[in-house]
């Protein structure tokens, strides 16, 4: 039965490790590990503010292999986020979202959202200082959505502040709603892959788009590769879980915010933007734009078929490299500029904060980016696909730099500081 789940024959070229990097299969393995260890922890965990922390301590101290199981859950969850993100990048850069795969791209985005939400809801459950305050500030962000924001925040927190209702909400979402969503969406995702005739066939830029190459039986060719990837990954997760314990700080204290208080690492990019721009822009305008662009990308008409070619074409490779280089220079400069030189609040004290700290910096950043975009577009003569790719690469590089800055370079009071000082 399980063997029927996989295709009978596969295109030989798609077996190359450098097409998929085994990322989709890794995600499945990690999700299975998470389900397994999650179910085990459900036997000891108690979702009440006065008991949650103690039940985690009990799990770690008294339960045989308790700490080990929690470590596996922790590391699998964190690696999963990286793996699904890399999988998303792989699919984008090999053009595997073009028709007939456009709807599977959308399903993939929702799966990504489910994984992100799983990780975030799981973050609160230990009820230590780290989780309590990270969730407080992340749900605090909802307040800036106009109209429904406050209502939504009350709904998710189950009250006006993070408390017992929040914990039981997050517990239900983490252990029932999201696993159910994953169990429904994942087979749908795999079925669409097979419906499209398997994976996108990789090819060199000058090759004909119709090239498919030979087909070989799935067993043993595909199966063997999947099993090897899974075993190596499991070994890695187990090793990490033996040597590194999942973090657990003191019990949550609503009266004392630790300094600095940080969001979970995968939201640090947003938290970093928050330091520079008005919350309305960061938490409403930017996510809406990202969602719109990602959802519509596969439905745009492109001048040529580029599916299967890494970075679309030779021009695409050159322009993407330049966009990344520009972001690599511009983002740190922007951060330093805002930290030490620009003081909109002091220059324009009369203006509303939303315009002063939101609109003006945004216009500044956008105009610089647009200038660079026009210059690069002229230089390389990019077509529509390559231009979109340039914007994507720029945003991606900038976001990674912002995330790294947030994780490692923000010290007490969220001022810039070096981690070893």
């Amino acid at each position, binding site marked *: 039965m399980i063997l029927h789940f996989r295709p009978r024959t596969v295109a030989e070229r798609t077996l190359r490790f450098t097409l998929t990097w085994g990322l989709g299969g890794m995600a499945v393995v990690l999700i299975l590990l998470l389900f397994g260890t999650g179910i085990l922890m459900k036997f000891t965990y108690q979702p009440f503010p006065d008991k949650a922390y103690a039940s985690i301590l009990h799990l770690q101290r008294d339960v045989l292999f308790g700490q080990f199981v929690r470590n596996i859950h922790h590391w699998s969850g964190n690696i999963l986020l990286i793996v699904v993100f890399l999988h998303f990048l792989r699919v984008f850069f090999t053009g595997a979202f073009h028709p007939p795969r456009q709807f599977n791209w959308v399903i993939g985005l929702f799966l990504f959202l489910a994984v992100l939400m799983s990780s975030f809801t799981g973050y609160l459950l230990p009820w230590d200082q780290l989780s309590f305050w990270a969730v407080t500030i992340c749900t605090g962000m909802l307040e800036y959505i106009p109209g429904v924001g406050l209502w939504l925040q009350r709904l998710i927190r189950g009250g006006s502040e993070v408390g017992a209702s929040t914990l039981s909400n997050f517990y239900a979402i983490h252990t029932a709603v999201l696993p159910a969503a994953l169990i429904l969406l994942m087979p749908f995702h795999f079925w669409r892959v097979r419906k499209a005739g398997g994976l996108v066939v990789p090819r060199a830029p000058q090759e004909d788009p119709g090239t498919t190459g030979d087909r070989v039986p799935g067993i043993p060719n595909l199966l063997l590769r999947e099993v090897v990837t899974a075993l190596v990954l499991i070994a890695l997760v187990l090793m990490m879980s033996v040597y590194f314990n999942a973090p657990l700080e003191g019990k949550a204290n609503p*009266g004392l915010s630790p300094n600095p208080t940080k969001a979970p690492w995968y939201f640090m990019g947003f938290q970093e933007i928050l330091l520079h721009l008005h919350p309305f822009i960061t938490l409403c305008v930017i996510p809406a734009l990202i969602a719109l662009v990602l959802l519509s990308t596969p439905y745009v008409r492109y001048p040529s078929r580029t599916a299967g070619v890494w970075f679309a074409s030779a021009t695409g490779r050159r322009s993407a490299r330049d966009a990344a280089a520009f972001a690599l220079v511009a983002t740190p400069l922007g951060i330093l500029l805002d930290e030490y030189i620009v003081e909109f609040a002091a220059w324009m004290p009369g203006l509303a904060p939303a315009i002063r700290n939101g609109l003006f910096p945004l216009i500044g950043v956008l105009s610089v980016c647009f200038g660079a975009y026009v210059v690069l577009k002229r230089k390389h003569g990019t077509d529509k696909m390559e231009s979109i790719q340039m914007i994507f690469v720029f945003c991606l590089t900038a976001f990674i730099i912002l995330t790294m800055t947030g994780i490692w370079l923000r010290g007490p009071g969220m*001022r810039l500081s070096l981690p070893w000082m």
Partner: protein
Amino acid sequence: MSRKQKKHEIKERSAKKPARRSFLKKLWLGLGIVAVLEFAGVVVAYLLPHRRSSEKRELGALVEAGLVERFPLNSVTAFVRGKFYLCRLEDGGFLAVSRKCTHLGCTVPWLDKAQKFACPCHGSAFDIRGEVASAPAPRALDIFPLIIENRMVKVDTSKPIKRSGFRPEQVVYPKKA
């Protein structure tokens, strides 16, 4: 009636039939959507925070902070259970300031040396009146209604008041004894 007319009538009738059918189809679809919306409404109503428990909390929400004399001029006293700071300004007026940062809801500690509330999360700062001293906080700290009866300061912690900035009429002064 000529043949042509008859033909025309038959055509019309046959055209009407699918119209009725499609109307019924639309009706079913509409009813289906209404049913789904009703279920969604029930789910949301079920999940919304219960009103009763919040009413209960409001009954015991009036905190007696202490006698006026207990608080020196230009001082800030923390009330952990009430989740507020009682600030006495230099001119003797009182202000009950929320400890919740208006940026993302962290708890702001009072720094006596620097004479400001400094948020550890994103570096916002507020002065003793709760006014924003440095961004990213978009507005001043919330305040709670405060009354002084028989020289006893009482704070109603159930209803935080949002404000964009500090105004002199927010300060409550004790009657001159």
